């Protein structure tokens, strides 16, 4: 293909001699992604506008909360999400306090956890980075059978969403995998039992493809954002002089081969057993 832009170099140049217009020299056309790096100076007007906002952000977000010597990490899809377990545990406990009744199960979405907590001193901004959304803690009622179905949907569609209150085991082969879900203490889940479940308004509203959560009955909107309960939990630990440590692994037990099949959506999951 001839380069049309080279041709267009000559024409305006010629025209400029004939008419009053004087165009700048035309560089060849470009299409590129230009990196914005430190080699480019700040625009002074923008920098001056941003400075006071940045100072206010730094003042509030630089406040120390708690030490997390090991950090808390999400892991890859299908692997254990210890950060997610901690968030789900914190949700379950906050929901229990909000309704002043036992909350048997909590689930959130790993896609909503936007950053790992790196080892060291955690600051307010770390929790904002982890949970930038204004998602609200919601408590609903589900049957035991629905809890199992929620876990199953999260497993198949998202490789296992962070939960609190249950233990999940996948065994067998990718072609014939068996799912077993019990309560955290190993006791069986009664499919007919009605239990309180903590989740987010986002998931309850149908976000992230866990449709069974939408069946939740008697929704109680706590008015607490997830971020606020995480901030409160960290601050309480910090005040007590305790460290933030990751929960124990073992909540999702999925062999590596089956994790791989889950990631590739090639896992044939048999009907879940309710007993270990």
């Amino acid at each position, binding site marked *: 293909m001839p380069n049309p832009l080279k041709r267009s170099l000559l024409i305006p140049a010629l025209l400029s001699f004939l008419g009053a217009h004087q165009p700048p020299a035309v560089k060849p056309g470009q299409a590129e992604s230009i990196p914005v790096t430190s080699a480019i100076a700040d625009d002074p007007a923008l920098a001056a506008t941003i400075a006071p906002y940045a100072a206010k952000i730094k003042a509030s977000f630089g406040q120390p909360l708690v030490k997390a010597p090991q950090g808390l990490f999400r892991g890859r899809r299908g692997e254990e999400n210890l950060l997610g377990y901690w968030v789900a545990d914190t949700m379950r406990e906050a929901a229990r306090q909000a309704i002043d009744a036992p909350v048997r199960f909590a689930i959130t979405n790993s896609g909503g956890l936007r950053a790992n907590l790196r080892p060291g001193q955690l600051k307010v901004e770390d929790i904002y980075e982890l949970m930038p959304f204004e998602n609200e803690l919601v408590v609903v009622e589900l049957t035991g059978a629905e809890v199992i179905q929620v876990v199953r949907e999260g497993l198949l569609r998202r490789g296992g969403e962070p939960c609190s209150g249950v233990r999940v085991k996948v065994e067998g082969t990718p072609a014939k995998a068996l799912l077993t879900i019990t309560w955290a203490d190993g006791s069986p889940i009664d499919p007919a039992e009605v239990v309180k479940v903590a989740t987010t308004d986002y998931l309850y509203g149908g*976000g992230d493809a866990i449709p069974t959560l939408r069946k939740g009955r008697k929704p109680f909107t706590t008015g607490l954002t997830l971020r606020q309960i995480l901030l409160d939990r960290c601050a309480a630990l910090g005040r007590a002089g305790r460290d933030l440590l990751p929960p124990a692994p073992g909540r999702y037990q999925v062999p590596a081969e089956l994790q791989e099949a889950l990631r590739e959506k090639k896992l044939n999951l048999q009907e879940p057993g309710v007993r270990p």
Partner: protein
Amino acid sequence: MKRRDFLAALGATAAAAGLPLKAAPAEAPSGRITLLHTNDTHSHIEPFGPGNGSLSGRGGVARRATLVKRLRAEVGASLLLDAGDVFQGTPYFNEYKGRLDYRLMRMVGYDAGTLGNHDFDNGVDLLVQAMESMERMDHPNPPFPFVNCNFDFAGAPELGKRVRPYLVRDFPGIRVGITGVGVAFAGLVAPKNHEGVGWRNPFESLKPVVKHLREVEKADLVVVLSHLGYQMLDGEFDDLRLPAHVPGVDAIIGGHSHTFLDTPTRVPQALGETLIFQVGFGGVNLGRMDFAMVRGQAKAASGSSMPVEG
């Protein structure tokens, strides 16, 4: 020819001919336009801090302003456009609710933007408030408009009057039509946060708008600001599939999938070709696409490294 040589040659000839000579090239060359663009800036007002891998130290809206100013001085006719998801991602959004993001965009000199799913994260009212804050600020740059043709704003009039189905901008020798499309709310935006705003098939919504821009508005170049995503295997609509369904689009400035492309992807379509570009996220890159009128048609700058798809 290098610019300096060209001016020297011109100066000598002008002096010899006794013609008046302007001191500086004030006008853009005719029939050329440079599209500058961002997507998914996600409230990354400051550069990425350490610990962000290859993104560490990159981005920052004050640097972007410098880069835009420099490029605009160089290229003449240009448009600065954004493909949505300006909101959500740093404490700046939590603290200032998007007002600061939009105000800074006006200062940088954006010509138009569109709406991504995260721009609804605080609901319609706070989105409108952020737009109002940008409109009301005292600044020499005009407020920038928003474009989208597949949202139904019947139940959200305050937002509806701030989002146009398309707009047209004239430059010497080239007329540019700009429209936008947004991703479905289902599963991405809580119902209460897009209350009053409906979603329609983006390809079907685009068809009459592109036709109108081409045939009635006589646009030479049609640009779509798309928040559909580059390639969405789980869904029905994405930028790569758009040209086959909606011919007549010259450029798609994409977002949503945070796709890092080095150069635009060129996709042939019934009326020519569509260039699809997207430059990652967080403002770490600025996209640039040049077009020039050749025999009455807008043609993309040819870049040998541009991959061809389809």
